[in-house]
């Protein structure tokens, strides 16, 4: 676990409900992993100008008063923040938009008590953690340019989405938990390829290659994409903006 390294993992939480800050503190306190909440605030600006700007992981609620923070994700990721989206609303459109925009993970608040710590630890280590709600969104993706998932990947995602434990999924598939995790992570990586490249995506890819998640014949495809992301502005083939308000502003233009 990355949290067992020398320094604790640091997180900052953007959420306008104080009860959520409270809940996050409770989850962190109950976990043996070393994760430290260094700032909790109601707006992104407070975090960016405060100590939270240096946090390893930025936990972002989408419903911030009158505004939707979905549009902030590309800019935050472009600035090198690892964003974990934390919302009550796991509408598949929002989940996929967040992942395409570069968010490390998407977590429904109702899943928080069970998956929060694991999600932020994975994000801090540039690994992706797929929550059940994210698995559901990936399964239901009906976009024409959606990544193609293998049958095994789809089965793993479906059972994980339904609420099975990883152990049960593994038993049902006749595999080890490790292999199930690999299937799910590989499916998630395919979503990292979609949309505009960025530093968090490149880091995710680098870690995936390091972890041996990607097959040899796929490495070139991923690598060239990651390299392209640091040099060129790579527009979405469908011409859609990555987010409603994020527009096409990019540091990589």
């Amino acid at each position, binding site marked *: 676990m990355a949290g067992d390294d020398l320094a604790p993992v640091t997180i900052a939480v953007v959420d306008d*409900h104080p009860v*959520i800050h409270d*809940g996050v503190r409770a989850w962190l306190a109950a976990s043996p992993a070393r994760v430290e909440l260094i700032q909790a605030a109601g707006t992104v600006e407070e975090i960016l100008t405060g100590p939270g700007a240096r946090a390893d992981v930025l936990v972002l609620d989408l419903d911030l008063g009158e505004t939707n923070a979905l549009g902030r994700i590309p800019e935050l990721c472009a600035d090198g923040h690892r964003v974990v989206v934390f919302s*009550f609303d796991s509408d598949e459109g929002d989940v996929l938009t967040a992942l395409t925009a570069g968010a490390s993970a998407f977590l429904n608040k109702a899943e928080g008590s069970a998956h929060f710590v694991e999600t932020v630890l994975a994000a801090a280590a540039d690994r992706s953690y797929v929550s059940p709600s994210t698995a559901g969104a990936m399964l239901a993706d009906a976009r024409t340019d959606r990544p193609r998932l293998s049958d095994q990947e789809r089965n793993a995602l479906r059972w994980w989405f*339904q609420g*099975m434990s990883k152990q049960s999924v593994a038993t049902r598939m006749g595999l080890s938990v490790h292999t199930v995790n690999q299937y799910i992570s590989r499916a998630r990586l395919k979503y990292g390829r979609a949309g505009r490249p960025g530093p968090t995506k490149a880091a995710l890819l680098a870690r995936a290659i390091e972890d041996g998640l990607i097959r040899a014949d796929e490495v070139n495809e991923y690598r060239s994409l990651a390299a392209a992301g640091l040099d060129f502005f790579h527009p979405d083939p469908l011409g859609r903006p990555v987010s409603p*308000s994020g527009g096409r502003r990019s540091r990589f233009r």
Partner: protein
Amino acid sequence: MTPVRATSTRAPGRATIGLTPSPRDGRVRHRKRARSVMLDPPAATTFVAAFALRHTAARLASAVHATVLVVALAVGSLVRPPDPVWFGAAMVVLAGWTVVFCVVALRHGLSSWLVAGDTLITATICVSLGPLVPVGTVPNGGGWVSPVIASTLLTIALTQRLAATVGLGLILTGCYLLGAGLASELSAGFGQAWTSLIQITVLSAVMTVIRRAGHDADRLFTAEQRAGHDAEVDRARRADERTQLRMIHATALATLTMIGSGSVASSPSRIRRWAAADLAALRSMSDQSRPARERTRLDQTLLEVVGRHRGQLRISYHPTPCQAPPEVVDALSQAAAEAVANAARHSGADEVTLTLGRAAGVITVTVGDRGRGFDPGPIPRHRYGVRESIIGAVEAVGGAATVDSAAGAGCRWTLVWPAASAPEPAATPVVRHFERGALIAAFVIGGLWHVLNDGMGVAVHWTAYRPPHGGAVSAALWTGYTVIGLLAAARLTRNRPAGRWFAPVAAAILVGGVAVNVVICTGPGVSTWTLIFGNANWAVGVSGWIGILVLWRGRAGGLVALFAANLLVEVVALQIVAPLDRPRLAQWIAAAYGITMLQVVFVVGLRFLQRSGDGAARAERRQNRAHAVRQAANAVHADRRQRYAEIGAAAADLLADLAAGRADHGDATTRHRASVAAARMRRLLAERDDVTDQLLHELRACADVAGRRGVAVDLVAVGTFPPLTVGARRELTETPARLLATARSWARVTVAASTDEVSVGVVVDGVLAEAELAGLAEIQVGREGEGLWLETIWRR
């Protein structure tokens, strides 16, 4: 009422939650579209068909003008004009004007000054007939002048109203007679005058029918636009309101979820403060929505109607508690109020009975009196408005209103909502209406032409035809044509397809008749050319008109072939009995042009008519469909509002207990209450579909049942549902529902849908008896931790 609603989205008491735009919802693009539509309500009337007509008219007039120029140059060069200088000048002017006319018409349409200029130039040509055409051609429209007149008449008819068309047409005819008079050939001018009068009549009739059909089509298009706009407005209103409701519930949801999962470590005082704040937000919502909820109670709104007549009229009111979408309540209460007021004014009865019933989802309102009554057949003028407004108001929201009355037997109105849906007719009334109009036009034109022009030709030239039996042959031919025309019309009105033999045989007779007519025009008494170019040779003209009736349902190519065959047969027959010299050929070209042009114009007009009729019919169908969807969506929405209020109230109880310190957030019972309330709220917040999918609807109902037993049911659905058969849906939901019923305190129900696959998964903390487990074995019930797991899958 519909137009008002189209622009007034803030009608008092309806959208009480307000329309604050909020970018909260992820579907920002969708919202923007809805909003921009809201800002641009449709114009009062849309002129789709009128625009298409103008467009067609400009192209048609330009084409006719261009061909007329070619014909005039051809004919003019074949005959020797009396004054070549005048003729040359006239040709230059005509060519120049034709170019100007076509360019302007195609670019900007047929403007009034273009029509005026065209009329002026043609009138000038008519008046200066003497120097332009040889004397002998004056009876037949001076060879090339006749097509020029015809093209101008067409331009006038396409652009002007009936009176102006007839007036300007008569002026042009007068000008021609004046020109003939100046050339001392006044009596010879009457032939062309007659042709012009027939053309004016035909064109006026066709254009009247086309305009009326176009007007109907426009009315339908406008209504469709308005229905679509209303639906957009409704959708935007619902989306905004949903966003507002979700925002209000979000704060309470956060608190309840955290308490439910035991994740709150704060001091009891902070929890009390949060609970109090959440409670205030929820209460503000229920305050806001109260007037809206009252409006949806039809029994209460009708009570107001009763109250309005207190003291003047005894109303015995028999209500049933009844809710309906606000616009339905508005429409039904407005209609009932009208019916009551009408009874008070006209019936003479001192008591009116008002009932409100609801059975199997159908609302029925009756208003009855035992007064004078009336015969519902012929309605007095002053009552027509009342009746229309009652029926119109109810029909506008998808209901039906009927009145049952007889003189002396009282009057009883029955208002029903929703109306029983009638099966869609094979051909909509609009199409039938358009088809009938076009049919009548074709029949009137053919009939008028045949009786006036041809009948007179037969009668006047009876003795001039080729002896011994030329007159009789012509009369027999005329009768034969009449029979074919009537047969064709009869088959069309009875809407029976003609036999396979009918069209070809009739067409052969029509074309053969043309040759026969030419042959009998070679009598000894009168010049053959006078007969050939007069109405003694009538068959070639009417053959096309009757042919239109005969080949009505066939392809356009058949008609074109018939027109061509008529001309070809005539010119070949002429070549045999009386070879054409150059001036005669010129004359024939001009005459053939005059005949064919009108027929082609009619066929083109007909195609336009059918197209706009089709378009109007499709618009009508779309409108009905949009209306049905809108009603369904509004009903779902009203229902959802109700549940928001209920769930808000349930959550409010718990929050009130927490705020007052009566409940402890660490207590297991409180945590479970919070879990159940939060799960319920999450299920509702996840609903965003306007018209609920049936599968999801069933699962939600099961989840609600379990929720009422105190089970916290998370229901997560992703993806877009493909259409499923009832059987497939039952297989997907039946066993999940059984497993859900065994849940003790929590359950997770998931639905993942894509175009090829729908899966339903259930995880519960329940335990199945061994026997039950055996019954479910084939569907793979698995143990999942302490509980059970099950999934059903449908694959395409």
